[in-house]
């Protein structure tokens, strides 16, 4: 797919974003990633419909969610989607200088490295959460025994990855401490500015919003994870600001942070 052909077509009206079923199936980490992409597209002013499918993970070209279907191209994950959107002529980070771009990339890696891995750890390696939330949700569209088989298979894959990067030996407390450290760094970097790079939001803001908002509004076994984020008032204000500016008035995202309505709750 040459970038020339990508650039040639304008953004269509029927662009769609695919994720798993929102009420019954989607997990914390996928929800965060999906919200990040939605926020990014909203910030670029590109219309997108969210379509929920039980087999979204298998439809995705890389096996990871979310993915977008634009024209006749399918692109998954935030990084490639940002590149794709840039090829179409929309970019949020053009105004940054080289050093700022380096910083932005570094902070995005920090979020992926710590927050996303911590979310994966919590939902696949913490036994209580796995039993009560993950296994029932992940396999919910499928009949027994397929639901158990699929979720054990996924759990095994995630555990292998955790072992390879050295997270398998961590306890839950250590993981929560890492989350705290990450939030501390994000809070320090944000300071009192409205966005990470002052006046304009960038893909970093979308990514951070996706993860923090999901953590704040998802009900898990305990509140420890969301408490870590709530300790930093500028981060919660940041999430509220982005929610109000980019998601208010759309029926699909009508919940607010203050009231944890059933729509956002992921506990059965």
């Amino acid at each position, binding site marked *: 797919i040459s970038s020339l052909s990508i650039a040639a077509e304008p953004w269509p009206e029927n662009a769609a974003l695919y994720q798993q079923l929102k009420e019954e199936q989607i997990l914390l980490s996928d929800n965060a990633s999906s919200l990040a992409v939605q926020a990014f597209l909203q910030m670029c002013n590109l219309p997108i419909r969210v379509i929920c499918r039980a087999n979204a993970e298998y439809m995705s070209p890389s096996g990871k969610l979310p993915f977008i279907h634009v024209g006749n191209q399918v692109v998954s994950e935030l990084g490639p989607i940002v590149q794709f959107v840039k090829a179409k002529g929309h970019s949020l980070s053009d105004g940054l200088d080289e050093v700022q771009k*380096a910083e932005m990339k570094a902070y995005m890696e920090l979020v992926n490295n710590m927050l996303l891995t911590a979310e994966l750890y919590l939902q696949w390696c913490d036994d209580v959460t796995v039993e009560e939330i993950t296994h029932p949700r992940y396999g919910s569209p499928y009949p027994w025994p397929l639901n158990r088989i699929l979720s054990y298979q996924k759990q095994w894959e995630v555990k292998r990855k955790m072992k390879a990067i050295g997270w398998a030996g961590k306890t839950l407390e250590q993981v929560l401490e890492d989350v705290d450290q990450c939030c501390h*760094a994000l809070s320090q970097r944000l300071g009192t500015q409205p966005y990470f790079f002052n006046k304009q939001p960038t893909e970093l803001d979308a990514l951070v919003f996706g993860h923090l908002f999901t953590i704040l509004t998802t009900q898990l076994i305990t509140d420890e994870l969301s408490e870590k984020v709530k300790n930093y008032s500028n981060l919660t204000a940041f999430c509220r600001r982005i929610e109000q500016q980019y998601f208010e008035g759309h029926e699909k995202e009508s919940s607010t942070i203050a009231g944890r309505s059933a729509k956002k709750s992921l506990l059965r």
Partner: protein
Amino acid sequence: MAARMTLSCWGGDWGLPSLHPESLTVMAYAKFACAPLTVNTINNSWRALKGDIPVLVSEDVVISQPAKILNFLRKQKYNADYELSAKQGADTLAYIALLEEKLLPALLHTFWIEAENYCSVTKPWFASRIAFPLSLYLPGKMSREALNRILLTKGGPPLYNLTEVEAQIYRDAKECLNLLSKRLGTSQFFFGDRPTTLDAFVFGFLAPIYKVCFPRVQLQEHLKQLPNLCRFCDDILTCYFRLTVSGHSPAGQDTADANLQKLTQLVNKESNLIEKMDDNLRRSPQHPPRKLTTLKLAAGGEEGSPMSLLSP
């Protein structure tokens, strides 16, 4: 702080105090923070090979990962980040994440997976520092772990074989080097003129790429085109490690080791050439992807032959 602190880590060569990125990071940080650390390089002993390397032992406390070791040193009041602002501390964390995600896979690949590099440099070097018969097993295990890590974190669709993954990780690593170079600019260290944790980590990752002489060196060539990063490494080596490299006793051992290693390299190169000629005669030429599959599937099969020529 009166307690004695000993650090066990891999030794060095080619002008470096250590070849191992994590060991190098800890040693650099200790120098920056003026922490009195006794460094024991691993050399043919059984003792320090149980856990991860590097390992810090202080009285009864045993700590093993670089981040944890640095935290411990900071708690003992050896803090190189004392003058950093909160935002700079946050930047440190972000850049370290960038290094681990984008540069580390290519570093691991250059050392442990690229067939020529592994067979002619990495394996003999590490094997010569590990006691027999562990030297037959441990380098292979480290190589398998590196491959595993890369495939699990970077492999998977839409990259379907190792060559595509390799291409992607080297692209990412070169981009990371460019970003670091832009961030460093013309200053001496990343946060002004005093070295900090971030400098220790960057040095730990860059110096092995910069100095170790491998047959396949695409990352090193890219790094050499970024003169400010090369200058950064050289500055740290001359200012902070000069004493260790020149007159200390580990250096004497290092020269003997270096000679032994050059001899083993020569022998291994010859045996590799002979193997290649044999294979060329018999069937299709051995080229890296095939060799790699052999490494993955039949662990220990093709590692056996060079090892028999090595005298640990």
